[in-house]
């Protein structure tokens, strides 16, 4: 199967400060991927490149066989098709919720796609129902809690039923119950045609949301493999600042060892 995203030697820098370095990657349709890395490892930048928001400084990115370039995205035909198929949920929901009400927020994307009014109304209702936020329909987003904002942000992209979901720290700011519900939602897409790429540094959710893990370190791919393989590689996780030394005492003797929590593996 040809890759959905094909990244070749991609580099990106913010005004001369490198964020991604010579990164090559292939992502197939239907994959569930976790981008794992410490703060500043390039996860969010990579998601924005995949969403066509930044062009790479060097290298090429192609989506479904077409080069993803500013020139291509300048054409209405390609841009509408791409935006319809690929959606990004930002880490900070406040930047994503810019409309006066929750309804307007969720209706924003379908309206930009110029869908018929009836379809917009029914899709919005379904997305609100799916995220269990129908009761917030007429509320202004600034009056919502952190968890509610995240749900609205998710509903605002799920409404398009995109083929690719790019999630930047999807469980950040969520309480444990909302986290669990979101993980359940991502798990529902397992085996479907939906490609879900989640950037996170929370090892404990990786096994639930991904079949492949890509570890980023200083803007490069440090390793990739199944969640079990990556989570078993203590040396890699320590080097990538994903685990920390846990100090404690036994019978008055203090010692330290790497410390991670995972639903699949719970080790001390």
């Amino acid at each position, binding site marked *: 199967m040809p890759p959905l995203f094909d990244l070749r030697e991609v580099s990106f820098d913010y005004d001369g400060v490198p964020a991604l370095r010579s990164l090559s990657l292939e992502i197939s349709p239907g994959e569930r991927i976790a981008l794992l890395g410490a703060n500043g490892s390039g996860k969010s930048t990579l998601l*924005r490149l995949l*969403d066509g*928001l930044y062009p790479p400084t060097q290298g090429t990115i192609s989506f479904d066989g077409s080069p993803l370039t500013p020139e291509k995205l300048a054409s*209405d035909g390609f*841009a*509408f098709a791409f*935006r*319809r198929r690929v*959606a*990004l949920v*930002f880490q*900070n929901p*406040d*930047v*994503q*919720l*810019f*409309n*006066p*009400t929750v309804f*307007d927020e969720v*209706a*924003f*994307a379908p*309206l*930009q*796609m*110029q869908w018929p*009014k009836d379809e*917009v*109304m029914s899709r919005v209702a379904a997305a609100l129902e799916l995220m269990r936020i129908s009761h917030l329909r*007429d509320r*202004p*987003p*600034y*009056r919502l809690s952190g968890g509610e904002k995240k749900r609205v942000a998710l509903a*605002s*992209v799920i409404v*398009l039923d995109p083929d690719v979901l790019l999630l930047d720290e999807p469980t950040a700011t969520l309480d444990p119950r909302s986290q669990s519900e979101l993980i359940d939602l991502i798990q529902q897409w397992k085996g479907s045609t939906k490609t879900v790429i989640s950037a996170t540094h929370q090892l404990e959710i990786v096994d639930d949301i991904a079949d492949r893990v890509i570890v980023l370190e200083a803007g490069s791919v440090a390793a990739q493999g199944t969640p079990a393989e990556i989570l078993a590689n203590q040396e890699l996780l320590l080097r990538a600042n994903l685990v920390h030394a846990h100090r404690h005492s036994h019978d008055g003797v203090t010692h330290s060892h790497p410390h991670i929590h995972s639903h699949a593996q719970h080790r001390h």
Partner: protein
Amino acid sequence: MSARGFLESTTMGFARALTRAMLSEQTARQRGLLQSLDPRVRVVGLFALVLAVTLSRKITVVAALFAVAIVLALLSRVQLTTLIKRVWLVVLGFTGVIALPAIFVTPGSPVAQLGPAMITEQGLRTATLLILRVETAVTFTTLLILCTPWAHVLKALRALHLPKEAITMLAMTYRYVFLLVETATQMFDSRRSRTVGRLPPAEQRRMAGRTAGVLLSKSMATSEEVYMAMQSRGFRGEVEVLSDFHMTMWDYAGLVLFLLVAAVAVGVGR
């Protein structure tokens, strides 16, 4: 200067104003006369009444329109104490200062002597008309804001074919001013939690300058992110919007009544 400093007090004032704005949405969701009408009718109808107030030259007509405003407020469950505190006293203070000289400088029949200055009948009429006009116009505008959620005001303006870009800018400014005020308040709180005693004025000014700089750079970063979030969801330079308002017979009746009152007021008051 107050203990908190000018900039901090101003920000706190903004925060209080925004809290009031949030509370006013509660009035907008109550069951009342204005709330029962389509937001477009409210916008057009109250705008027509404001226009009638500004075009009327007779005190009796403007006073009648003021009475209409009071009746509308009562039927829309708006507390008169709210209007007294937030509109009438404030407007009286500001407009009174402007209108005061008119009492003395307008030529006409003298009614009283105040030291060397003469109060004229025409002067009193001019000042009363000016104050009454501003009070009435601001009351109608306040009723619109109090009885209509901000989102519906924006939608109504869109439905009335005001430029979409202007409405979107207005909506986003209102949306993000909350975020910026919240950020500023947190910055001040954070600073206060690490400050003992009172800082010298020069240091306070430096601190205020630095805070303003940080806020500006934060707002710039936020605006870039918001633009990307819009692009990511298909924004191509022109905002598409949806109007889901439905006019009923009640709304049409309300609109006709508003326009009729405004037309009669203009006709009689000119």
